[in-house]
C-alpha cells in the first residue's frame, strides 16, 4: 500500500513538471497560434543555466532566478527573430522553423557542455517528510510547492490584472485587441517571457528530480507536451494543466506501479489519438 501512495506522489510530481512545460506551450499557442516545439529546448537551456549557476555560486535561488531571466531572453529572441518574421506564412512554416531552432539549440548545448549526462547534485531547502511509513522526499515537496506557487501567481495575473485581461483578449482576437488600445505584439512578447521563465524552472526541477542534465533532455518532453496541449484543448491553460497531471499519474501508476509492460512515453500519444478521434476540442477546449 505504501508503494501505491509513494508512486502516486511521484506521479503527481511528474504531472506537475509536465504542467509547467505545457503551460508555456499553451500560452504561446493562445496568442500566436504556433506550435512552439522549441519550448522544450528553452527548458533544456534552463536546466543547464541553472546547473551552471548552482555549481558556480552554490545558490539555488540564484540558479532559479538567473535561469528564468536567461530563458526569458532566449524565448523573446525566438519570438522576435524566428516566429515574427515567419507569421505571414502558413502555420507549418513557423512550425518547421521551431523544429530547426529546437535541434540547433540541442546541438549548441552539446557543443558547449559536451554530450555527457551531467549530475545536478542539489538539495532543495525543503524537509523530507514521512507520514505513517510513506516517505516523501524534499524534492517532491519542492516540486509541489513551486508548481502550486507558479500556478497561483499565473492564475492571479490572468484573472485579476490588466495584463491578464490583455493576454486573454489577444488570445481570442488579436486584431481587435489592437483596436482596443492593447499593444498586442508587446503582449505576445510578455507571454514568451512568462512561458520561458516557467520552462527554466521546470528544467531545473527535472534536473534535480532525476539528477540528470543532458543535451537531448528536451526531446521527449517536446513531443509529449504537444500531445498534452491537444488533449487539454489547444489554448486552454486549465485543460493543459489537468491533462499534464493525469498523464503524470497515469504513466507512473500504470507502468511504474501496476507493472504493465507498455512503453511509458507512448501513453500521451495514445491519449492524443483518442482525443482527436472522439473529442477533437480537447478535455477543456471550446470548439471554435
Amino acid at each position: 500500500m505504501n508503494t501505491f501512495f509513494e508512486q502516486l506522489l511521484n506521479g503527481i510530481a511528474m504531472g506537475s513538471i509536465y504542467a509547467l512545460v505545457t503551460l508555456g506551450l499553451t500560452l504561446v499557442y493562445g496568442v500566436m497560434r504556433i506550435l512552439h516545439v522549441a519550448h522544450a529546448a528553452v527548458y533544456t537551456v534552463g536546466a543547464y543555466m541553472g546547473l551552471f549557476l548552482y555549481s558556480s555560486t552554490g545558490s539555488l535561488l540564484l540558479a532559479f532566478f538567473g535561469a528564468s531571466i536567461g530563458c526569458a531572453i532566449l524565448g523573446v529572441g525566438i519570438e522576435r527573430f524566428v516566429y515574427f518574421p515567419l507569421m505571414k506564412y502558413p502555420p507549418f512554416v513557423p512550425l518547421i522553423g521551431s523544429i530547426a531552432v529546437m535541434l540547433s539549440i540541442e546541438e549548441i548545448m552539446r557543443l558547449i557542455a559536451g554530450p555527457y549526462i551531467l549530475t545536478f547534485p542539489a538539495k532543495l531547502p525543503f524537509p523530507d517528510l514521512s507520514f505513517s511509513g510513506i516517505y516523501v522526499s524534499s524534492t517532491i515537496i519542492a516540486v509541489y510547492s513551486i508548481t502550486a506557487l507558479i500556478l497561483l501567481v499565473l492564475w492571479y495575473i490572468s484573472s485579476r490584472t490588466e495584463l491578464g485581461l490583455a493576454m486573454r483578449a489577444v488570445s481570442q482576437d488579436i486584431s481587435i485587441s489592437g483596436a482596443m488600445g492593447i499593444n498586442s505584439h508587446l503582449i505576445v512578447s510578455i507571454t514568451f517571457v512568462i512561458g520561458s521563465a516557467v520552462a527554466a524552472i521546470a528544467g531545473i526541477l527535472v534536473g534535480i528530480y532525476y539528477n540528470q542534465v543532458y543535451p537531448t533532455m528536451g526531446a521527449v518532453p517536446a513531443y509529449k507536451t504537444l500531445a498534452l496541449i491537444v488533449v487539454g484543448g489547444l489554448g486552454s491553460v486549465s485543460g493543459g494543466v489537468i491533462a499534464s497531471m493525469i498523464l503524470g499519474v497515469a504513466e507512473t501508476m500504470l507502468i511504474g506501479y501496476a507493472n504493465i509492460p507498455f512503453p511509458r512515453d507512448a501513453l500521451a500519444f495514445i491519449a492524443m489519438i483518442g482525443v482527436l478521434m472522439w473529442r477533437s476540442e480537447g478535455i477543456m477546449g471550446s470548439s471554435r
Partner: protein
Amino acid sequence: MFLEVKGLHVSYGDIEAVSGVDFYLEKGELVSIIGANGAGKTTILNCVMGIIPPKEGAIIFKGKEITGIPDFERARMGIRIVPERSRVFPRLTVYENLLTGFYRIRDREKFSERLSWLYEVFPVLRNRQGQLASTLSGGEQQQLSIARALISNPELLLVDEVSMGLMPKLVDQVFEILKRLNEEHGLTILLVEQNAYASLNISKRAYVLETGTCVLEGDAHELMSNPEVKEVYLGN
C-alpha cells in the same frame, strides 16, 4: 479638418479593394459611406483604425498624419471602432469586454461613471455583465460592441455595418442612439452601412462607394432624393 483621408489605395494580394478614395469629416459630423457588399467600405474603416495598412495614401487625424501609427496608439488617441459582426471577445464576460475598451486608462471614477451611463443606454448589458459574451444573442453582442467602443469616451467613432443581423426594431434603436450621441454629445461618427436608408436618414453628409471608388458624395438628404441612389440603394 478632423479626419482627412487622401488617395487611399488598399490591396489584398493582387486584388485592389480600394482604389483612390478621398473623404473628410469635420468635428461633430455624422458622415456615412454607403455601398454594396464588397465595395470596400469595411476596408476603408479598418484602414482608418489601423487594423490593415494602406498601400498608398494618407490618413490625417486632428492635423496629424497617422498613416504609419499602429492601431493601439490610434485607439489611445481617441479613435474607436465598432467592428463588422461585433467581434466581442467570446470568452470574456460582458464586464471584462467593457474593461478591454478602457485598457490602460487608469481612471476608476471615470470608468464607473461611463459604465453606469452605458448600462442605462443598454440595460441588457447590466443584466448580463457576469456572462460570457459568447452566450449573448447577436443583437446583444452588437450592443456590447458599441458600449465597448464608447466606454473610453472616444473622439471619433467608426461604426461598421451595425445593422447587420439586428432585428428591425433594434436597428432603429441603435441608429437612434448614434444620432443622440452625435447631436447631444457632439461625437464625430463615421458610419459604414449597407442599410442606406437608415444611415442616410441620420447622416449630415454621405459618400457612395462602388467597387473601391467613390462615385457620389454630398448632403445626405439630397443623396436620398438622387434618382440613381434611389434606384440602386434605396430600392424604389
